């Protein structure tokens, strides 16, 4: 049998609380709004704070993307201006478009030979397009699906990039070694390379336009028996940690098509890779 309720003090107190709620319902509208305002501010403060922080983070992320894109554009423009200033030939004007692309996958063995980016042919990415970061050259697209592309980084064993010393204008061919550095091949023994020199792309191929920053000369090992001068270069772009890259969408033009292709491996034939379903 149910015990009699509303007899003990706590039952009366509970009824009082419910009654207070009912009284509040019948309060004048204006009075209710005015009286509850401070309480509303206090109780909803965490929500407001959360919304503000969330909005700030979203704004910061958008701004970060915009600035990254701007930095990449400026890096390319700066490298080309430096190259034009120190070279003998005038740099041809190049109009290009940068396609920002998050890195969504890596090769599982080294994390730095191959990248998968979440932009594909539907976004304007084509096989053979250079891939850069704000720091410098990162690699090139070797296959493009509708929504994703495969990028061969400059540290992949198959990678070969025609480069030039920005200061002395000595050309060479950059290939990766096994320690995450680049080694310049075919640099003549008497050529002028010094530690600290900046190495940029030479534009001798169909992939990389002239003047993109690649790396810095770190050491020149002394090998008297070698036919060419071995030059070690540290890449500016840290491909093992890069999270976002930019694909350079270059229009077909004389600055790329007329270059010699003997120094640089050409773009891989177009390969269509299946697109992953959304959300994977």
């Amino acid at each position, binding site marked *: 049998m149910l015990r009699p309720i509303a007899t003990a003090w706590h039952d009366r107190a509970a009824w009082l*609380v419910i009654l207070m709620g009912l009284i*509040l319902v019948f309060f004048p509208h204006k009075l209710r709004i005015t009286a509850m305002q401070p309480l509303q501010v206090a109780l909803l403060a965490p929500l407001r704070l959360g919304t503000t922080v969330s909005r700030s983070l979203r704004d910061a992320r958008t701004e970060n993307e915009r600035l990254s894109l701007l930095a990449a554009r400026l890096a390319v423009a700066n490298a080309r201006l430096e190259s034009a200033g120190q070279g003998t030939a005038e740099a041809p004007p190049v109009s290009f478009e940068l396609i920002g692309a998050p890195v969504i996958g890596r090769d599982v063995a080294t994390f730095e030979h191959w990248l998968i980016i979440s932009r594909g042919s539907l976004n304007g990415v084509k096989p053979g397009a250079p891939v850069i970061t704000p720091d410098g050259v990162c690699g090139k697209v070797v296959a493009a699906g509708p929504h994703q592309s495969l990028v061969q980084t400059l540290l992949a064993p198959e990678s070969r990039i025609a480069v030039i010393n920005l200061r002395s204008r000595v050309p060479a061919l950059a290939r990766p070694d096994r320690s995450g550095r680049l080694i310049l091949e075919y640099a003549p023994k008497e050529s002028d390379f010094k530690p600290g020199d900046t190495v940029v792309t030479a534009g001798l191929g169909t992939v990389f336009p002239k003047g993109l920053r690649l790396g810095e000369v770190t050491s020149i090992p002394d090998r008297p028996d070698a036919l060419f001068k071995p030059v070690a270069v540290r890449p500016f772009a840290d491909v093992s940690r890069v999270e976002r890259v930019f694909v350079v969408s270059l229009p077909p033009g004389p600055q790329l098509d007329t270059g010699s292709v003997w120094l640089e491996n050409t773009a891989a034939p177009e390969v269509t890779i299946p697109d992953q379903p959304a959300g994977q």
Partner: protein
Amino acid sequence: MRTFVALALLYLVFLVQAGANQWWPDLVLLGVIMVSLHESRIASALAGAFAGLCLDMTNPAFTGTHLATLAATGYGVAVLRTLFYRARWATLLFTAMALSLKWAALALVGAGLPGLPALVVSSALTLLLAPLAELSVARLLYPGWQTA
């Protein structure tokens, strides 16, 4: 101390609920019921009143509606739970009754109910979540306690 932790938990649930849309289950109502299954009558009524006050703050034009409804729910559950000895289905019954009370009160004061599909989905989800909520709240706040 445990009651204060329960109030803090209700406030957290309210913050989650306030950011959700009308299709979501009524987490605050579930929280009040689960706390009331273990607390005293006055503590249950106060927990319901606190949760109701928080909900009222999202729409001050109808202040008091949620407060009275959830305080009544808390108190009612605390009183009625003594009628059912370890009956798990009692939680579902309490939840259904509390939902009916809440929707009726909101309709009565003209606070505006969500559309029928949202109302049905939200209520169904609330009922579905009730056993899970009972289990998790009991383990989190009241280990070793038994309902009823």
